[in-house]
């Protein structure tokens, strides 16, 4: 607490002051009746408010800021439809453990429970999709609730927190003489030293170990420690979708992404391993395939900050609850640089025998070729976001990700419409970077209205629209698993995306019309400001290999 001359101010002013003291520089949202006092207070603040055009877009912009930086970010919405529009972005943050503080207006307290205009039970609706939530009862309470919301969002396993503030609480005048300290992440209890010793012994004595990195490695800033451990212990390393970038894909020990669309060599190596060291990973079904068939011969060391993840899907032989970076750093000195030659040779053999096949990699008019062409115009400072579908998986497979937080994708919820607003958020948080959003012709339309926000904010976001005239991933599943009965996945109408973008104030180029697509790409990507880059892709292109839903990972098809 810091003491100052007492002031009599409103709840809304208290909120804005607390956000400023918290160091919040940018918030995204849309106003409405029940949050107008907050917006009035915000108008006098140095905080930059980004006016989204749909609350879900605002929520994903805040996510983009939080994912790019690791710092809790803020989105705002009014009561009723404003709040319900925000829910998808909050649920998405929950499943990917993203620190988010969502602030919603609510009808005045005396009207709660009367079916008042634009009243919904935001508190009740958000319980299952937040880490914690608050319905604020008085302006005074804000002094405790707001720092606590930031603390909870950032502490331990991060996640979204919602604060619902009735309008009369926003208008309530109270005297404030002391300001609370900003909310910061709690200290994490030191991990159990005996467990670390047992884990080290298991790693030292294993003959075919694999390191399995999840999104927690990125969240805890443990990428460097993970690479160091892999190098010292000679551990071939797989990453989940969320962990991509934690170890550079071209590192000698990297086996890239595991699971449903992992390379054959990756899933086959996992099938042979005798020790799996899971770090900040949660054995998600897209990563494991049929759990009984996942690493069937392996003992498991599971390291996670969230004790409820240990033994949730697979029982660990050694389960260590703790900050994964701390644990990895403590493990490191206990590793005896074991002899791994036969296993590393076996893995190298699998890699040459069963590599990821990327047909068309040299042709920018194919999915893989386009992704590689984009990558060749950029360096590791660029940030990459995606929407959801085939394009997301192709990028996950083919883009040379080398930096933690370089890769922002909706993993757990798999939300179409994530990519562009998240890219706007990332660009707002780190304006020095080029942010590329790979999208599909289905996904882009789910938050297409944010193109005007991109233009308004003049963010350095390049949208690479891979247009296959279909909901490609659905088309692929119907082709492979529903007897080619293609239904409701082929678009009959197709917007003119160039004119759509230009209509929103975003310049656009059509690679289909460029005689030298590489040169056009390179010019587009080196310009500043938002741009849409349209490229047609053949409808029949598939993401392979693919583990059929419900099958074990080694039963992958194609590739």
């Amino acid at each position: 607490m810091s003491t100052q001359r007492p002031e009599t101010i409103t709840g809304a002013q208290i909120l804005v002051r607390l956000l400023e003291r918290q160091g919040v520089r940018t918030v995204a949202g849309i106003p409405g009746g029940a949050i107008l006092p907050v917006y009035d207070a915000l108008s006098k603040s140095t905080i930059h408010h980004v006016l989204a055009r749909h609350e879900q877009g605002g929520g994903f912009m805040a996510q983009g800021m939080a994912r790019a930086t690791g710092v809790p970010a803020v989105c705002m919405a009014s009561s009723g439809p404003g709040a319900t529009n925000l829910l998808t972005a909050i649920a998405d943050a929950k499943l990917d453990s993203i620190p988010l503080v969502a602030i919603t207006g609510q009808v005045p307290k005396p009207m709660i429970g009367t079916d008042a205009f634009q009243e919904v039970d935001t508190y009740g609706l958000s319980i299952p999709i937040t880490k914690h939530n608050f319905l604020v009862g008085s302006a005074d309470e804000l002094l405790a609730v707001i720092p606590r919301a930031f603390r909870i969002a950032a502490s331990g396993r991060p996640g979204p927190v919602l604060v619902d503030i009735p309008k009369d609480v926003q208008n309530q005048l109270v005297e404030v003489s002391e300001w609370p300290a900003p909310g910061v992440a709690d200290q994490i209890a030191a991990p159990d030293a005996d467990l670390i010793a047992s884990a080290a012994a298991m790693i030292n004595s294993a003959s075919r170990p694999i390191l399995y990195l999840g999104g927690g490695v990125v969240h805890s800033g443990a990428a460097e420690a993970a690479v160091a451990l892999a190098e010292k212990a000679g551990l071939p390393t797989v990453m989940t979708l969320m962990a991509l970038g934690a170890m550079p894909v071209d590192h000698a020990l990297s086996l890239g992404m595991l699971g449903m669309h992992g390379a054959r060599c990756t899933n086959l190596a996992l099938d042979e391993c005798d020790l799996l060291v899971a770090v900040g990973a949660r054995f998600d079904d897209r990563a494991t395939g049929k759990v009984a068939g996942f690493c069937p011969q392996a003992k498991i060391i599971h390291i996670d900050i969230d004790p409820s993840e240990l033994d949730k899907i697979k029982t660990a032989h050694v389960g260590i609850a703790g900050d994964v970076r701390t644990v990895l750093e403590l493990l490191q000195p206990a590793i005896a640089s074991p002899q791994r030659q036969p296993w590393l040779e076996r893995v190298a053999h699998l890699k040459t025998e069963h590599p990821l096949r990327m047909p068309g990699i040299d042709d920018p008019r194919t999915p893989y070729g386009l992704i590689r062409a984009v990558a060749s115009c950029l360096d590791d400072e660029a940030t990459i976001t995606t929407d959801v579908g085939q394009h997301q998986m192709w990028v996950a497979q083919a883009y040379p990700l080398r930096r933690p937080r370089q890769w922002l994708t909706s993993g757990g919820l798999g939300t179409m419409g994530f990519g562009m607003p998240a890219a706007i958020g990332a660009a707002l948080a780190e304006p020095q970077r080029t942010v590329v959003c790979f999208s599909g012709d289905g996904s882009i339309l789910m938050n297409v209205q944010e193109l005007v926000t991109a233009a308004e904010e003049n963010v350095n976001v390049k949208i690479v629209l891979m247009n296959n005239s279909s909901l490609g991933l659905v088309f692929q599943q119907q082709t492979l698993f529903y007897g080619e009965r293609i239904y409701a996945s082929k678009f009959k109408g197709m917007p003119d995306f160039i004119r759509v973008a230009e209509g929103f104030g975003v310049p656009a180029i059509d690679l289909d019309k460029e005689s030298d697509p590489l040169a056009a790409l390179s010019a587009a990507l080196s310009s500043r400001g938002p741009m849409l880059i349209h490229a047609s892709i053949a409808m029949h292109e598939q993401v392979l290999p693919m583990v059929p839903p419900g099958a074990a990972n080694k039963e992958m098809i194609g590739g």
Partner: protein
Amino acid sequence: MNSLTTTENQALARAVLELDVNNHAGVMSHVVGLFSRRAYNVEAILVMPVGSGAMSRIWLLVNEDERLEQMVKQVEKLEDVLAVRRHGAEHEVFVRLEEFFV
């Protein structure tokens, strides 16, 4: 469950959970929601404020299946849950209430 004796309770492999929680309007939804979302039936529930009323105690009677361990860990993660203690089905708290359910 009113007609069940203590021994019958044990035969069904039940457990009694005792939770210390902050006392405010949302706590019950947070706790009960965790169970209902996972289709984990809560057989019986009892809540009373303790001490000054800033805190409450929640007693839950639940089936003891292989998911209970995970349920307890999830309950422990709730911000407003201060402590969770696990008892066997022989715990008296619900047995002594049976007279109100005849």
